[in-house]
């Protein structure tokens, strides 16, 4: 089977910088592949080369078996790109935007309108279809961007940081739609700075650093490789923190850290530990305000892979912990 995306030794140079420095990728059709890395790692450049927006300086890249250098127009018929910034016309309404893109893809007016109508419903934008994109919230824009990407029924969808800047609730909404894009048969290549996002969506992850792939694997493989998961326990009654500490220590044979007056954390290596902790705490009858297994942040992933911190920490993800009543 021809891979949806295949690159060998991909290189892109900007001046002195090797933005992409020998990247090999293979993405099987129908899967979601995540490019995980900090700002400036080269993720966006890889996507732009594959979407035929940027010329490569070395190596080879093919999308659906078509060479990006030689058969760009063949590729453009079969892909879509959603950039980091909502790439829509702000002065037009959602419906006008989608119809325009449909028409540019060769649809007749009526077909483009029908397709627009359908997509706006699918992406839950039907009631704001005639509002200018200018007035949209961040989450609505991302959804519309995704809808615009689906207009031409692309076989490969490139999503460049599809949820950057969205708050967690909106992020999950967009994730849900990305999953359904993939389920309808398309291949998705997405870039992200969030381990959480790569874990939630990707079948396979490539970790990118300074233009190179420094690790790859399925999310479980990657998590095993980097370790660094943490169980976070917050008793409903802060007075019972000491009691909880003892219970957790007995369960895991490992001393938890009291990170604040009412929270304790304990690093764990395998996923089963979480269940053990849950059972022990339930057995002890300690009610929880928060109980979560936190994934390593991108920063922690990087630290364990490279031994150094990512340069950019401003965009580091807020750990998505469930703040809810635990039974």
């Amino acid at each position: 089977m021809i891979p949806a995306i295949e690159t060998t030794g991909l290189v892109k140079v900007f001046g002195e910088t090797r933005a992409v420095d020998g990247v090999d990728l293979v993405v099987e059709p129908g899967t979601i592949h995540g490019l995980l890395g900090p700002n400036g790692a080269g993720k966006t450049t890889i996507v732009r080369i594959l979407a035929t927006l940027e010329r490569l300086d070395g190596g080879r890249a093919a999308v659906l078996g078509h060479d990006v250098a030689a058969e760009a127009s063949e590729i453009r018929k079969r892909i879509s790109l959603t950039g980091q910034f909502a790439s829509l016309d702000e002065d037009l309404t959602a419906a006008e935007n989608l119809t325009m893109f449909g028409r540019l893809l060769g649809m007749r007016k009526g077909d483009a309108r029908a397709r627009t109508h359908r997509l706006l419903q699918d992406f839950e934008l039907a009631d704001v279809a005639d509002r200018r994109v200018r007035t949209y919230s961040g989450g609505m824009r991302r959804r519309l961007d995704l809808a615009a990407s689906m207009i031409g029924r692309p076989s490969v969808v490139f999503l460049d940081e599809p949820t950057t800047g969205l708050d967690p609730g909106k992020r999950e909404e967009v994730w849900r739609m990305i999953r359904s894009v993939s389920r309808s048969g398309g291949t998705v290549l997405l870039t992200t700075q969030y381990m959480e996002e790569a874990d939630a969506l990707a079948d396979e992850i490539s970790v990118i650093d300074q233009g190179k792939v420094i690790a790859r694997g399925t999310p479980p493989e990657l998590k095993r490789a980097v370790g660094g998961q943490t169980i976070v326990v917050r008793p409903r009654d802060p007075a019972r923190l000491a009691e909880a500490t003892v219970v957790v220590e007995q369960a895991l044979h490992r001393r938890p850290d009291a990170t604040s007056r009412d929270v304790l954390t304990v690093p764990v290596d395998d996923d089963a530990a979480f269940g053990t902790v849950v059972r022990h705490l339930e057995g002890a009858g300690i009610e929880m305000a928060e109980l979560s297994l936190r994934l390593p942040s991108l920063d922690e992933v990087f630290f364990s892979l490279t031994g150094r911190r990512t340069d950019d920490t401003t965009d580091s993800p807020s750990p998505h912990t469930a703040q809810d009543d635990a039974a």
Partner: protein
Amino acid sequence: MNDRSTTSHADRAPVPDAPTGTAEPGSDRSSTSATVTAPPPETVLTPRGVIRESLILAQRSLTKTRRNPGEQMDALIMPIMFLVMFVYLFGGAVADSRDEYVQYLFPGILVMTTILAGLLATGLHINIDIKKGVFDRFRSLPIARGAPLIGSVLGDMIRYVIAVVTVFAVAYLMGFRVETDLASALGAVLLCVALGFSLSWLSVFIGVAVKDENVVTTVAFLGIFPLTFGTDMVAPKETLPGWLQAWTDINPVSHAMDATRGLLLDNPAAGSAASTAASTAANSVAESVTATLLWSAGFLVAFGALAMYAYRRRA
């Protein structure tokens, strides 16, 4: 994939299959497995394709103009301001009467109007579009590379119409009268539009080549002043200093000023050094029109090619 989840939280529940629960985005594909090999939509890169795509994108520019009527003001205020200012401030001093002066001045202002409309809007819009990312999406579509540029320029032509009509109306209120006939007046307008259109490609080139939108506006103004004021627009050429006369002689916009005067006025000789004798007036109008059209064609080819080149490079 759910191994990080907590015990029984609602937001960890399995996510419904599709946004609406019934339909998936893009799910009107015939079948899932066919997707990867599905034939792409019928899009061919042909001259007809370029025209079709450019017109679709011109439609977009038109809609934007309709939604932002305020943006028109840039291209309207300047010519009207100069018209009013020169006629009422200097008209009495420069010519025998204000009525006479408005007849002299307006044909030049008409040229200025379309040059302004051409240089001010399109390049700036394209510059902003490129930064906002909508051009990235255009470029990743299987459409002609130049279509977004051509579409923007074509769509912005409505601005010339609005500007010319408004400026004409103001001049009429100020006492300007067409001394020839309707056909000649229309000819003058079309000529001005042709010149403005061809010069708009200069602004497109700058808009594509330069990152900072302020630079785009600055360069446009830097071009507008020598091109329009370095002519006999406001005063007869003989009254200008020698160095300015030299520039006026080579400034292509001078031809357009001569041509519009010839097309709008009975006796344009008063202002035009080119036509010294009444008998040669008709000839010299034809010459000025031809010269203007040739220059416009030259600008169109040169700046159009530069713009396309810069656009391709800014991939």
